[in-house]
């Protein structure tokens, strides 16, 4: 990674927002900012400015940071623009022409880290926030950042350090009239630490899972109104909608914001499961569709309210049924129980549908954010647990040096998250608890 150039990126989270932030960091950041905002103060500032670029005049909040007193530790400027994607793209295009490079994912954080502005756990917390979808995930990421992981893991590490110190004392201070740690006691301590680590893992969500967008697939007969539904929920046209059956020739998707987070909504190519495919292309399309349905977290059956045929069959049960084109409904009793009746034309059932999708997609989470661990944390904790299990297994054996080896390895794996415990710290632990030395 090169730290000599100036980078820029949209640093607010993707999706519609009232304000969008463009962040610029690097040696030339200030000069570039001055070219569109000549009255930017030389010191750290936060003010409204009139920006001039691409023949536009835009009023925006501009935050100027001076190295090293910035997030990245470099010269840094943030433009808080009105939430208009075109405007943001124009600004970024302008900055690129001035020599700025698009930042790679997490590159601001990496620079902050390399400039000593962040420690590893915090840096990872920030990276998680950047990628987080939805409020709950942000909350979980913020907890990680605030050191909740450290707060929970640290006491376990301290207890492990203490156990190892007592074992080391038994090795290095053999002539002392002290019983350092009875073996059954050691066994109990190790088991307790193992339990706590296990709980930590099971009560935490994997960040990967947390930041995974639920995939919801719309399944229905051709012209059942899936594409209309998709466009309706997404708020813009993603599928070409025509009254002719079989218009949707490919897997279409849109990101849909729900109250608890965003979902990945997929409209599969028109399925007519009873018929054998007429061409290779159609066979492939159907295969795509089948896979999309299998991989989805939720499957939603979309059925025209007046369609008398039985619902289409797929390899999984449906999580939700939506009856479309309610405006065409002749008799109010035609709808199936538990189905949500909607009409894109009249707006009927929209809130119902969004509420149901929201519940289903984010069910089981209790709405409460739990501690989020990333892959590195999970792996370190799991490895530490492996070694602890080994150690617990030999707690009663005479090979105390091998027991110490396992405990040391366990401690080192946890140390990869919170920082390594040095032999000096271990000795300090021993000397502070025992009267050692003749």
């Amino acid at each position, binding site marked *: 990674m090169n730290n000599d150039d100036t980078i820029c990126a949209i640093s607010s989270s993707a999706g519609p927002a009232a304000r969008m932030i463009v962040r610029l960091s690097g040696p030339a950041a200030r000069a570039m900012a001055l070219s569109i905002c000549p009255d930017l103060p030389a010191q750290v500032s936060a003010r409204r400015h009139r920006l001039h670029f691409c023949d536009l005049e835009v009023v925006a909040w501009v935050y100027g940071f001076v190295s090293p007193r910035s997030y990245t530790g470099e010269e840094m400027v943030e433009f808080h623009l009105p939430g208009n994607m075109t405007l943001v793209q124009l600004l970024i295009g302008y900055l690129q022409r001035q020599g700025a490079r698009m930042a790679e994912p997490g590159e601001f954080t990496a620079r902050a880290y390399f400039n000593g502005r962040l*420690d590893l756990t915090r840096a990872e917390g920030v990276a998680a926030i950047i990628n987080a979808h939805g409020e709950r995930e942000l909350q979980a990421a913020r907890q990680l950042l605030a050191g909740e992981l450290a707060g929970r893991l640290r006491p376990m590490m301290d207890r492990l350090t203490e156990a190892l110190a007592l074992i080391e004392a038994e090795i290095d201070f053999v002539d002392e*009239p002290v019983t350092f740690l009875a073996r059954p006691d050691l066994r109990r301590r190790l088991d307790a630490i193992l339990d706590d680590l296990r709980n930590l893992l099971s009560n935490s969500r994997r960040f990967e899972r947390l930041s995974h967008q639920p995939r919801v697939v719309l399944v229905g007969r051709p012209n059942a109104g899936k594409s209309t539904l998709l466009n309706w929920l997404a708020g813009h046209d993603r599928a070409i909608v025509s009254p002719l059956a079989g218009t949707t020739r490919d897997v279409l998707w849109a990101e849909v914001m729900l109250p608890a987070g965003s979902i990945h909504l997929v409209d599969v190519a028109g399925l007519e499961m009873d018929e054998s495919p007429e061409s290779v292309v159609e066979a492939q399309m159907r295969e795509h569709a089948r896979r999309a349905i299998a991989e989805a977290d939720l499957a939603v059956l979309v059925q025209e309210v007046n369609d008398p045929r039985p619902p289409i069959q797929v390899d999984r049960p449906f999580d939700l049924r939506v009856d479309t084109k309610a405006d065409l409904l002749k008799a109010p009793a035609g709808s199936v129980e538990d189905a949500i009746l909607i009409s894109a034309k009249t707006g009927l059932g929209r809130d119902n549908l969004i509420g149901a999708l929201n519940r289903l997609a984010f069910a089981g989470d209790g709405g409460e954010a739990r501690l989020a661990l990333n892959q590195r944390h999970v792996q370190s904790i799991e490895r530490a647990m492996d070694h602890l299990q080994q150690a617990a297994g030999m707690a009663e054996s005479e090979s105390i040096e091998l027991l110490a*080896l396992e405990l040391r390895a366990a401690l080192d794996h946890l140390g990869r998250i919170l920082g390594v415990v040095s032999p000096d710290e271990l000795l300090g632990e021993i000397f502070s608890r025992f009267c050692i030395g003749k």
Partner: protein
Amino acid sequence: MKQEYDILVIGGGHAGAEAAWASAHLGASVALLTLDLSRIAQMSCNPSIGGLAKGQMVREIDAMGGLMGIATDNTAIQLRMLNRSKGPAVWGPRSQSDKYRYAAEVQRLLSNCPNLDLISGEVVEILTEGERPAVRGVTLADGNTVRCRAVIVTTGTFLRALMHTGETKTEGGRVGEGSARGLSGCLTRLGLELGRLKTGTPPRLQRDSIDYSGLEVQWGDEHPLPFSYLNEYGQAGRWRPPLPQVPCHLSATNGQIHQIIRDNLHRAPMYSGQIQSMGPRYCPSIEDKVVRFADKTSHHVFLEPEGLDTDEIYCNGVSTSLPADVQERIVRLVPGLERVKFLKYGYAVEYDMVWPTQIRATLQTKRIAGLFLAGQINGTSGYEEAAAQGLVAGVNAAQYAGGKECDFVLGRDQAYIGVMIDDLVTKPPTEPYRMFTSRAEHRLHLRNDNADLRLTEIGRRMGTVDDARWTAFEAMRAAMERGFDLLRQNRMDGVNAMEWLRRSQTDWAGLCTLLPGASAVDPDIASRIEIQVKYEGYIARQDRQIERFAQLENKRIPDGLDFAAVTGLRNEAKVKFAQFTPRSLGQALRISGITPADVTVLAIHMDRSSPRNATGG
């Protein structure tokens, strides 16, 4: 005395003796200068050598041709293998030594050593020359000048030494001896930054004034193992210590004693503020024990003979700097010591040390070419730690004086000696540094049994291992190889005999009942093979765990790298790196206060700055 030597060793303690011995064996002309020749290799404190980790270090010194192991074997009056009930990786040999015979033995070995002169005198000035100063000689207190190419300073506790017994302060590094006053000033003038440490010693009691009748007796091992491999090779456990073996006795302090100590704390220099410097936590004075562990009602007192012919008993466990009258009162309340006579009172001693951030891993100072430091001057404590540094400094000084590049540095995975020196140059000691097995991440490999397999070949390459040792070592190695062949070529219970022996429930004795050739293997060799086989799997795993670290270890940081110019490096890291000038990225990472991020930034800088640098290691 000649007017010119290759190397001058200042000080005749355990570091000085080993340094002079090593460098003279490498062919350099060497003079050892000390205040009093009869005090060479004196045991100032405990009449004991070895112990956990320390014993392993003596074995390492011996494996490379040093003299401590031989002198210990020849003068031991009690030998014990500590931790015998635990795994062999943490066994540590320990001896009680006859301290007078030990010193005499080292003096005998040194006086018969070719290329070496022993000279009585005090060095007051180290002479340097040149823009980047290099050692040229020394000036003695009598005004004479001796020229040399290298100086090894091994002054122990004698630099500006001040002894405390209660309110009484006496200049000197040991009872009845002086202090090297001039040298501290000289080191400061040479630009070295000095620190101050403290250590202490217990009273010496008269043997016949002790009532042994009610005391617990502690004997050594019935079949002791020697320290020196020379006494092990081909002896098959038949080695016997040449001196008669004697016991130690065990008594204890009590509540009455603790109360008197508490009542007199204001007269203890450590508590009255008279001593400010830091003492060792692992060797607390009796007043420390009573204050810091107030809930303990009793502490052990070991009564250890200082020799066969002397009536001095070392009162181990009662290190103190309380005033003489208080010492008498408390010691006489210890069971068995009711009518004891004091030969020497306990005291604390403060002395100057040189912050070891100013030396390289070769023990040469960074600032002055040809100036080497070894032993307590680098902030360590203990005879073994000192001797090990003496060996390293002696070899490097001989290389330097011979115009070669000094490069004798042992890795943390090769020897406790390597662990110690690496610790010293990366983490300045806040208390006198003592070796513990827990400091070694490669503990399972750094064993008492295999120090020769780890180091004798290195010693041979350097020139400190003579033909006799080398021949015996090669014979031992060949015998081990034959033993391994036997295992490789036979099968037991359907597996290779090596695999069979690796199992947790098997041992060599069991092998002998099943495999005819096994009982023909020399028991010492069999024991070595068995230990190696049992640990191999764990060591391989340990090595994998430390692999990441080894990659950093091999990445050499080019000499003269301008850390201030490394972009992205935190200010603290710049300062630390400039101060410690680490040799490798691994060493950089071990500097206190340095984060992995700092080392990553440094690595990126090295990769980027020039391809020449990237291949430097």
